[in-house]
């Protein structure tokens, strides 16, 4: 089971709908400073249910919505869609593709959908858990996060392992 598509729309600097088609192996993203690479990474962890605005570098959940630029006005909603290839039927669904999406507006509300049907965050987490992705947010290592592993308190490091266990 792997990620086939990641689609960002109105998410951070990706004002326009943007689709990445990922491959099974090693996918590498490059580009200049400030171009949007880490924003893609943020989009991925956001659609997987990340709850802390600070882990996405923001002060509030509203910070993930395209805020406009010198030439453009901001948008009112952000959406990220993750399409999983279920060819190996790791997920207990009779579909070859499963799409998870998350949607937020400026009130701070997040909505989740599985295959376009509205659901709760819990449903997404259970689905991912079946897929072995689960609460494995430890497998998403953000920019500058390495040193935190070393600065972390012994109990915080325990939490890393407990999350993966």
């Amino acid at each position, binding site marked *: 089971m792997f990620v086939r598509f990641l689609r960002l729309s109105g998410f951070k600097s990706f004002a326009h709908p943007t689709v990445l088609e990922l*491959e099974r192996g090693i996918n590498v993203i490059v580009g200049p400073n400030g171009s949007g690479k880490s924003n893609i990474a943020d989009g991925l962890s956001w659609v997987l249910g990340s709850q802390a605005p600070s882990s996405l570098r923001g002060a509030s959940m509203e910070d993930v919505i395209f805020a406009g630029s010198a030439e453009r006005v901001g948008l009112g909603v952000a959406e990220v869609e993750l399409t999983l290839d279920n060819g190996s039927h790791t997920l207990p669904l009779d579909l070859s593709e499963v799409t998870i999406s998350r949607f937020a507006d400026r009130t701070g509300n997040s909505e989740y959908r599985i295959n376009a049907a509205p659901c709760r965050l819990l449903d997404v987490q259970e689905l991912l858990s079946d897929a072995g992705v689960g609460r494995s947010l430890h497998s998403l290592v953000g920019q500058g996060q390495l040193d935190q592993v070393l600065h972390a308190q012994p109990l915080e490091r325990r939490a890393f392992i407990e999350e993966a266990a």
Partner: protein
Amino acid sequence: IVQVFSEAFEDVAREFEVVFERLFPGGRGRLELSDPQDLLGGGIEIEARPPGKRVKKLSLLSGGERSLVALAFLFAIFRARPSPFYLLDEVEAALDDVNLQRFISLVHELEERAQVLIVTHQKRTMEAADVLYGVTMRADGVSEVIARRMRESRESRESPVLTE
């Protein structure tokens, strides 16, 4: 619950020794429980001894050495409890060329059973890609993905060739 953690810790600790030796050939690393009696609430300590050196506080290690120790910890978890997907954002920025190659060989091993998404500025890391994406920010403050290149064949691990 304690059982789950204790098994996980054993597996991670075992992998940590293996991975540490891969990143610090001739060195030795260990994970220890802060309190071996307290399996329910104890924390985890990292002991790192680069080759030829003596065990010291982690704070005295160099920038690159600290990155390697942190990577050893994370990769030990990845190997003990695999995930189908990994995301690594510029984790290798502080590594010199030799250590970068050691890191990349660990990533290749992850890739045998998982999908990996890496953000980088390093040329060698780009060369390890099966597919490469170029991101840019336009003058109007909007990001876009402007390129996608796939390696011609998985066997030839040279620079990806434009296939579109």
